[in-house]
């Protein structure tokens, strides 16, 4: 077996990693969902904008450019257990309601600043909830949105080759090379969340 994957898990257990993929680890053993799983084009558009707010376009493309809304939808449909799916799905409406309450407008028509302010607040909320979450409890919807955004973005072709660096066959290993602040990190295909 892959021992460094085991080490990665060891680190995950100790909480060193940000996104321990709670939703994936909760181990749904049935392939048949308890409820029909589907997202509307409006849901996907909303997830595109949520993703873009989490990882916006800067000197490199943002999450929307990698089709993050569709990615989040497919992953939630194919991989999530029922509780996590429900958390994410219902969370979309919650995000929109919170935006109307805070900014007086829907998330889709909110300004980037209004969106960022709201999602910053939700990120604080999900951190607090994650710290006191009990076994079997579904992860906070914004934690799931953030996990999927990071995974979908950094493992995409744009993420691997523009935001990060990736070579298929490095051809050598050097264990001590100089690094200057600002240089991009290597994408490591083996280390999975």
């Amino acid at each position: 077996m892959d021992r460094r994957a085991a080490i990665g898990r060891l680190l995950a257990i100790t909480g060193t990693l940000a996104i321990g993929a709670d939703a994936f680890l909760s181990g749904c053993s049935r392939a048949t969902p308890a409820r029909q799983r589907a997202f509307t084009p409006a849901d996907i558009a909303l997830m595109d904008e949520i993703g873009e707010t989490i990882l916006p376009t800067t000197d490199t493309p943002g999450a929307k450019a990698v089709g993050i809304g569709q990615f989040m939808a497919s992953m939630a449909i194919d991989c999530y257990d029922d509780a996590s799916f429900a958390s994410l799905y219902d969370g979309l409406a919650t995000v929109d309601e919170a935006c109307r309450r805070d900014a007086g407008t829907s998330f889709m028509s909110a300004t980037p600043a209004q969106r960022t302010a709201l999602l910053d607040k939700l990120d604080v909320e999900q951190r607090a909830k994650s710290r006191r979450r009990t076994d079997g409890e579904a992860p906070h919807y914004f934690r799931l949105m953030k996990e999927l955004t990071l995974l979908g973005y950094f493992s995409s072709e744009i993420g691997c080759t523009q935001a990060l660096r990736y070579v298929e066959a490095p051809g050598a290993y050097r264990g001590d090379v100089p690094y200057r602040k600002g240089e991009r990190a290597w994408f490591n295909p083996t280390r999975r969340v």
Partner: protein
Amino acid sequence: MAAEHFDAIVIGSGITGGLAAKELTERGLRTLVLERGRNVTHGVDYTNATTPPWKIAHRGMASRELVAEYPVLRRARLAYEPNASFWANEHDCPYVETKPFEWLRGYQVGGRSLTWGRHCYRWSDVDFEANAIEGVGVDWPIRYRDIAPWYDHVERFIGVSGSAEGLPQLPDGQFLPPMELNVVEKDVAARIRKRWNDRRLIIGRIANLTQQHNGRGPCQYRDKCWLGCPYGAYYSTQSASLPAAAATGKLTLRPFSIVRELRYDRDRKRVKGVSVLDAETKQEIEYTANVVFLCASTFNSAWILMNSATDVWPDGLGSSSGELGHNVVDHHFRAGASGRVEGYEERYVYGRRPCGFYVPRFRNLGSERRDYVRGFAYQGSASRQEWTRDVAELGIGAALKAELTEPGPWTIGMTGFGETLPYHDNRVTLDRTRKDKWGLPVLAFDCRIRDNERRMRQDMMHDAAEMLEASGVKDVRPTDGSYTFGESIHEMGTARMGNDPTTSVLNAYNQVWDAPNVFVTDGACMASSSCVNPSLTYMALTARAVEFATRQLASRDL
């Protein structure tokens, strides 16, 4: 029609079966290799070996479909869509967990040689003498001097990169140049060595080639070994032993061949051949041979013995000792420590090294006596955190994105692999009430770790934390990540070697006491587990047994 005859039959094509085939054919024997699963052709069938990360299904996450298909693989945290086809179909091949057991199987040509961890360590006399000294299990019928030349032989063939360290508990071998520790690991190694005379942090000794070797490799540092390597840069049946065997012109390989029993001749006290069930057509086929090498993997070798010669011994061939199926061992693991490394912000690595570091056993050597017997070793690595890291103060947005596109702080972690004692009542049995897809009875597992292993786990956590702290690592956390029997995929025992036919299944040359032309050379033969990764020892025992068998055949003693 008369059954087709071969000089030798090898059952199984994994780490030991592949090597047995190579050794037998190179010694001139016409050899039939029977593999229960499909064929996997080198290169061609490594479907995802060069798939870019963005084209990997679900980006490596387990889908609900995959989890439903591979529940045990999921429990072992190994369910990975790109190489799922290298693991046995769990629904076709069920087993019974009397106690929780993770049985992780590779049912295809190459077996688990395609997915193995590739760490290669020699046993020493500390390991071979432990049973005798402590009065645990039975004494090993061999010592280091008996196997040392065969370690040489195997290492030269498979190619093991590593560093010579002169440690008596972890003998040096025929190494290719070692891979490199990274800058943080080097400094931690130096601080451990300064503080403890008897502890070392060394680079893993691994069957990945650091230079061209026997026409294979070298390693391209892609770190995708378990998808199959198109460069043949790690040892597998496909990359090395099967081509060598085929080159002799004496090899016949038959996939989809489930061996249901060894045909025992009670008058000659020999096995005359095997009965095979074609996994696809369900047709019954017989083959005969002068000698049979049982290399079907630990529990499947036990299964075949249990299903053989039942007219003579109801519990199967090799059961006359009362030990067949007993003394199951594994390495209990996932106890260790990890932490954060300060500094080194201006240092990084290039390439993806396919192994980590190794801390050889240091407990209970010499005169030390802990509150448990035997010992453990660590595997670990240091690395800079990636985009998966938490950056609490950044939340979301452009600043988070900028931060995550750069490497994060260094972390280091290690997990112990501990020796499990051979308890007689840790066992597998045949459950004849449950059947697999082919109507064959399945195995039931009844194994658990006990106080010796639990006490050892305390040290596995404590010692790792202590070494990291002494090396200046911050926020060190000792961790017991829980362990289920079988999970380390180092399962051994069920047909142990020994000096006495009344207490062991096999003799000093891996021959079944009750059928000397049957050699069991996979993990089933092990009389204890040591704490080092076992595959290299299986291979050395296999090569040694083949040499013995061919001498016996030549002198007509078999």
